[in-house]
């Protein structure tokens, strides 16, 4: 009985850890390599989840053929691309100006996350048209004016005219289009959306009297693939080498001809893309909504902090440890075992203690307390960076 319970804890801990890890992987890369706190990471996950939803709907005509089961792979790629493009846009437009000011970056990305959250709630035909119109007018106008020889003096004034003007035109246009019911209706609205997992991911494997849900196994496998991919990219590819070089010494890398700007953009896009993959993965666990990101972001940050910045292996160990601990405490297995072993009477305070923390939210309280204690012993995480450049 207890052995079975232990297996149960191990498997569930591992699967929670895998979800945490896949959510934290992109964060670890962006935070570890660039020192940027991306509070919009959860919202990039949410974008990945919504992309999965769209891809699934696009596959609806194939619903009766075996091909439908493969939509998840298309969705994974699509989610990666959508989130990566969004991340690239974010980096180029906002974060680029904030390097070296981590607290400001944190606030700016929070602003982005608020906007994204409201965006999926209220995006509809008219709003999409308005956005396209705005981009055309704003960036198109800039591109036109850039040809003028006196662009440098004109720049500020052009921005001050173009931004309100194109914004106003786009707003008026989308307000007018809102008269059409078909265009005014939001695509997703604030409701949660449900992604039906493909047939082969439903159900589970039976092994030694235990049920292993296939979706969870799939997420574990996906996490392993992502981990291997990121490891290969960072350690074995030319761009990975450049990324690591910039991480260690930005000035020296720039002197040696590494385009640090491109490296930053690439790193951020990679981290964002991984968030998209994570978002696609969590759709298999239940319905998702605009607030999906908020559920994961704090836990994911805890993984990065405990693991130590800049080392992937730290994130892996931390994710599994936090996942297992959360499940062990929250599932109420410990008091159950104690009753089975007749330890309830002799260890009454311990029993009360574990019963008190035997819900998911209370388990989080306990895990956080343990993290704080852990940071007293190892303030820089499990695998801290060493050397002169290391500073937390």
């Amino acid at each position, binding site marked *: 009985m207890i052995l079975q319970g232990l297996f149960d804890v191990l498997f569930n801990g591992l699967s929670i850890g895998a979800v945490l890890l896949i959510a934290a992987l992109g964060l670890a890369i962006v935070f570890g390599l660039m*020192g940027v*706190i991306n509070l919009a990471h959860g919202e990039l996950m949410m974008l990945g989840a919504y992309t999965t939803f769209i891809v699934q709907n696009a596959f609806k005509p194939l619903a009766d053929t075996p091909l439908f089961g493969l939509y998840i792979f298309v969705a994974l790629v699509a989610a990666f691309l959508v989130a990566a493009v969004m991340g690239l846009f974010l980096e180029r437009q*906002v974060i680029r*100006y*904030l390097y*070296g*000011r*981590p*607290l*400001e*970056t*944190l*606030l*700016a990305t*929070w*602003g*982005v*996350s*608020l*906007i994204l*959250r*409201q*965006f999926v*709630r*209220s995006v509809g035909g008219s709003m999409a048209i308005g956005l396209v119109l705005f981009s055309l007018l704003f960036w198109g106008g800039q591109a036109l004016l850039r040809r003028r020889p006196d662009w440098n*003096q*004109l720049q*500020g*004034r052009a921005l*001050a005219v173009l931004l309100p003007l194109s914004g106003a035109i786009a707003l008026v246009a989308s307000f007018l289009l809102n008269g059409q019911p078909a265009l005014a209706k939001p695509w997703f609205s604030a409701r949660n959306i449900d992604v039906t997992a493909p047939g082969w991911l439903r159900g589970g494997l039976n092994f030694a009297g235990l049920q292993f849900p296939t979706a969870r196994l799939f997420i574990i496998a996906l996490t392993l693939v992502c981990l291997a991919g990121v490891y290969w990219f960072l350690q074995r590819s030319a761009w990975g080498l450049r990324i690591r070089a910039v991480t260690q010494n930005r000035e020296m890398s720039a002197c040696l001809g590494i385009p640090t700007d491109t490296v930053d953009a690439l790193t951020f896009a990679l981290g964002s893309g991984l968030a998209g993959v994570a978002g696609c993965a969590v759709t298999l666990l239940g319905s998702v909504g605009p607030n999906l990101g*908020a559920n994961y972001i*704090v836990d994911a*940050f*805890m993984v990065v*902090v405990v693991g130590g910045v800049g080392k992937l292996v730290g994130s892996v160990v931390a994710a599994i440890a936090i996942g297992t601990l959360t499940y062990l405490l929250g599932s109420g297995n410990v008091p159950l075992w104690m009753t089975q072993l007749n330890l309830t009477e002799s260890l009454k305070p311990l029993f009360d203690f574990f019963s008190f923390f035997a*819900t998911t*939210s*209370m388990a*989080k*309280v306990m895990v*956080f*307390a343990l*993290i*704080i204690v852990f*940071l*007293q012993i190892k*303030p820089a995480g499990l695998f801290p960076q060493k050397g002169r450049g290391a500073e*937390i």
Partner: protein
Amino acid sequence: MTATAPTRPNQSKAWIKEVALVGGFALVFAVLIPLLIPVSRLQILGRFLSLAIVALGIDLVWGYTGLLSLGHGIFFALGGYALAMNLSLQLPKDVIPEFFGLYGVEDLPAFWEPFKSMPFTLLAVFVIPAAIAGLLGYVVFRNRIRGVYFSILTQAALVVFFNFFNGQQKLINGTNGLKTASAQLFGANVGSEGVQFKLYILTIVLLMGAYGLCRWLTSGRFGRLLIAIRDDEPRVRFSGYDPTAFKVLVFGMSGAIAGVAGALYTVQSGIVSPQYMDIAFSIEMVIWVAVGGRGTLVGAVLGALLVNWARVLLSERFPEVWLFFQGALFLIVVTVLPDGIIGWFRDGGINKARAFLGFPPKSRTFPAVDLDENIQREREMVDAAPPASGESR
């Protein structure tokens, strides 16, 4: 301020001017505005003013000491809970608050007992948040964890407190929170207009008090030390100071201020619930300070009032737009207005804006003097003294 009492005449004049200005504003809020708007609106204004008190606390830790706390909701809510617990206990002897019956609790939990006494509660409103803040600060700062790590840990602490208060129905009524509107305070109903007006005046008085406290803390040697910690902490340490102690102290102070604000906010909105520990709410507090101008106390108050006023205006008419607006506010403040509104005006923002748009800067003196490049260069060489506050945060 007795130790560093202003000696030079122009300094003491500035001092008197500031006191007069603050007092004047307080009088306008306390006397003039109640004549103009009904009590229901006054209640909203009172809430904003109590939020301005938290903003002062955040400015103290972020604007002056460079510690970005994303967890001030904890202290805010703790202050609110302390007062709300006392108000829920204004019952006949041996009767426990009604909600306990819903969960089958028959005896008052032990930690509720001391809140029966009013003096204890009034103390607890700021001592408990200060103690929690101090403890959290101590375990974090002791290990020289700082910067974004500190921010993330405060946010995680916030989530933890939220989970705790949200999950413990048998102890503190969980999600539903504690209602104070129908409670009795000194024989009068807390929700009644008379009490609400008195609370409004009390909020103004305490806001002034908090302003005075922060002004006093930030103007003397202590304040300069805080700024030094913000700008270059290792150097402060090498100069023989222990930044940890100062950071713990200032974080505790800020927690206490937030606790007082939370208590005022609670009695003026009639309820305290775990929603006060929402992640978004705590980050919003930071943006109030950032909009007004961090590192300036007036800015914190101004920002809190402005942003909340905008929220009421926008979310009443177009609830959808508010989040877009708030997000844009974060982006704009960070990229275009890093020193907020007050900082922008102090830096000659109008001239900068004119220069950005390609117009010559407006000049108060003879234009040729200000625009002549040679004269400007000479001037820059003369006052090449380093700026008072550093650039890097």
